[in-house]
Structures are given as C-alpha cells and as structure tokens.
C-alpha cells in the first residue's frame, strides 16, 4: 500500500512533461509565443527524474527516464494544438521483507492533447507581449496494469494512470531581443481509475531567458545563446485509494532550474537542471533529488 504514495512523483513528472511546449521559450513549461498558421513544430526532450530521499523506512530509490515527443500545429495565428506522447523507463528499488528489491517497467505513457489560444497580443518593434489560455485532456494510453514476478506494479512504476484527466491554465510571455520572461499558472484535475485517484495538481511557473551571445546584434538572423533561470512551484493534493485520503502523499515542491538554450532559425538545443529547494510533503512521500532535462526543438 505504501508504494502507492509514490504516485505523487509520477504525476509531478507527467505534468512537468505535458506542460512543456515547443516554441523558443521556457524549458520546463509552456509559452504564449505563436505557432504560424499551417506550420508544424516538433520537440524531443529527455527527462531524468531521480528521487532517493525516502523519509520512510523502505529506503526507496526511484529513477524515471522519459523521452517526450511533442508535435504542435498552428490552426491560425492565435490557436494552436499540441500532442504530447512520453515513453518511459522506470526503475524503483526498495527494501522489502529484509531484501533489496528492484521493480521496473517501460513503455509508452499517457497521451495528452491540448489547445492554446492567444487572446491578447501587443507587438512593438523588437518585442512582443502575449497572453494565452490552454486546456487539454490526458488519455489513458499507457499501461495501467503491468506486473512483475512479485505482483502488480504500484502506480509509481506504471507508465499509465488509467484515468482521463483534464488540465487548464494561463500563460504570459514578454519577449524582447535581449530577454524573455514567461509565467504560467495551471491546474490539473486527476480522476479515479483502478480504485486509485492521484491528487489534483496546481502549478505556478516563471522563466527568465537572457541573451548571453551575441552581445550586440548585427544584421540578419543570428543564433542566440540564452542563459535560463526558471522557478517551478508544484502543489499536489493527497491521493485517494479506495476513496480514502492517503496521508503520505501530496505536498508542495519548489524547484529552481538553471539552464542554457541555443536558438537558431530552425532548431533549438537546450538543457536545464531542476533542483528542489524546498519540499514540504505529506508523511513519507518520496522527495526529489533532481530533474534533468535535455532536448531539441525543430521548426520545419
């Protein structure tokens, strides 16, 4: 039963992955920058989520490696649709009946689709300010019932939740030739599946990208090297198992995420390390060590 508490971590990962979009902008969440009409953007990101600080006595150590594929399409200059599909490799080690046990799983995760509408924009020479709203749906395409030689895998090792979930939020972007700021507020409602319901999730994110190179702009379209600093506040309510609150799940995490981003006309390479600065979790919920991200985006 205690292993179900680990689902907090799973859903934190999934949300962080799903809320990432594909424009030049934040590494850990969305942006309000446009996708041109009838154009596609593609993003491939790899995420390593390491959690090994176990306040309980199971000495849990969990590693999840996720390859996140995102495709965006511009319906028009204001409305874009996104599809996000993760592939996960999850490994959990823990003490069980006096032995060290490893449980693992891999496969395609839950597919998310969402739409984003830019409802306000103000363009000036060399800068833009935009506000957008987004809403979407997560479908249970991942495996929700996998098992190993010990028995059924706990939610923390499953690639799918089994539930249809919805999420929505607001995002703003202020972009100039020298810097970019993005902010996002979002909420996700997780639903019950297989007698389990993960806690709903609230997120508040901020990102500052500052152009480090070239120091002064020349003519044409030079590539930009941005220094990136992001902040992610993630709060999750307690999970429910069999209709009863799990007092060892949910809580609040705050990440500081330094990163770097190289932006050209047709592609972007980026990496960031999400470092937990505070983790105020309920009971023995497993704490994060770090989340490492590396990826590329393509404009084609």
């Amino acid at each position: 039963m205690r292993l179900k508490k680990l689902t907090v971590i799973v859903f934190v990962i999934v949300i962080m992955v799903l809320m990432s979009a594909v424009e030049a902008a934040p590494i850990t969440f969305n942006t309000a920058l446009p996708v041109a009409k009838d154009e596609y953007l593609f993003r491939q990101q790899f995420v390593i989520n390491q959690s090994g600080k176990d306040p309980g006595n199971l000495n849990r150590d969990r590693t999840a490696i996720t390859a996140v594929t995102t495709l965006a399409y511009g319906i028009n200059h204001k409305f874009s649709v996104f599809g996000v599909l993760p592939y996960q490799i999850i490994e959990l080690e823990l003490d069980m009946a006096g032995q060290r046990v490893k449980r693992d799983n891999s496969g395609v995760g839950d597919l998310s689709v969402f739409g984003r509408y830019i409802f306000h924009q103000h363009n000036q020479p060399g800068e833009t300010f935009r506000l957008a709203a987004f809403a979407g749906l997560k479908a249970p395409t991942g495996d929700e019932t996998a098992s190993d030689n010990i028995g059924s895998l706990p939610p923390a090792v499953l690639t799918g939740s089994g539930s249809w979930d919805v999420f929505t939020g607001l995002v703003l972007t202020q972009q100039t030739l020298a810097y970019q700021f993005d902010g996002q507020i979002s909420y996700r409602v997780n639903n019950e599946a297989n007698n389990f319901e993960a806690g709903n999730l609230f997120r508040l994110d901020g990102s500052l990208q500052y152009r480090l190179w070239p120091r002064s702009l020349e003519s044409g379209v030079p590539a930009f090297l941005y220094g990136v600093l992001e902040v992610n506040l993630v709060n999750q309510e307690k999970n429910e198992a069999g209709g009863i609150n799990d007092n060892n799940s949910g809580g609040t995490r705050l990440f500081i995420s330094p990163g770097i981003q190289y932006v050209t006309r047709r592609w972007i390479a980026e990496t960031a390390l999400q470092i937990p600065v505070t983790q105020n979790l309920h009971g023995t919920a497993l704490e994060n060590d770090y989340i490492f991200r590396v990826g590329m985006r393509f404009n084609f």
Partner: protein
Amino acid sequence: MKQVLLLILFVVLWSSPVFAAGKQYDLRVDGLACPFCAYGIEKRFSKTEGVANVEIDLKNGLVVVKTTDGKSFTEDQLRNIVKDAGFTMKSMSENSLGK
C-alpha cells in the same frame, strides 16, 4: 551595320521592362524578437506562390520579400501573411527589381 542595329535592339529589349521584373517589398514587422519565431514568417512567405526570396533582419524588424518575375502583392496580402505567422506588419515599401 544591320547586325549592329539588331544587337543594340536586342540589348535594349533585354534590359527593358518588356520582360516584367519582380518586386521587392521591405516590410516593417513588429513582434519579431527571436530567431526561431522569425522563421515562422520566412516559412509563410516561402510557401506563398510567387515569392522568390525572403530575408529577415531581426535587429531592425525588417522582412525583405522578393518576388518572381511579374508577380506582385497588395499591401493587404502581405499584411495577412505576416499576421498568419503571428506578427504585425506596420509599414511597407515597394520597389521594382531591375532585370
């Protein structure tokens, strides 16, 4: 002498607007602030029939569009292409490209 006259006539005709030249449009575009976003405009114009070349100057918010021979655009057409890419065209100037 006749050959010289024919040669002169050929050169004059070749260099004259009888062969309709393309156009160059210099567009002032607001909202352009990063290379990846600028490519959205470039793609929109590149897919437009009659566009021969697109160059962008990010620093000055300038998009230079050159058309193929005989092709021209109205201001509204150009404004809509820029709008479809998510940006705002503030002004434009038009020049004929000499042959």
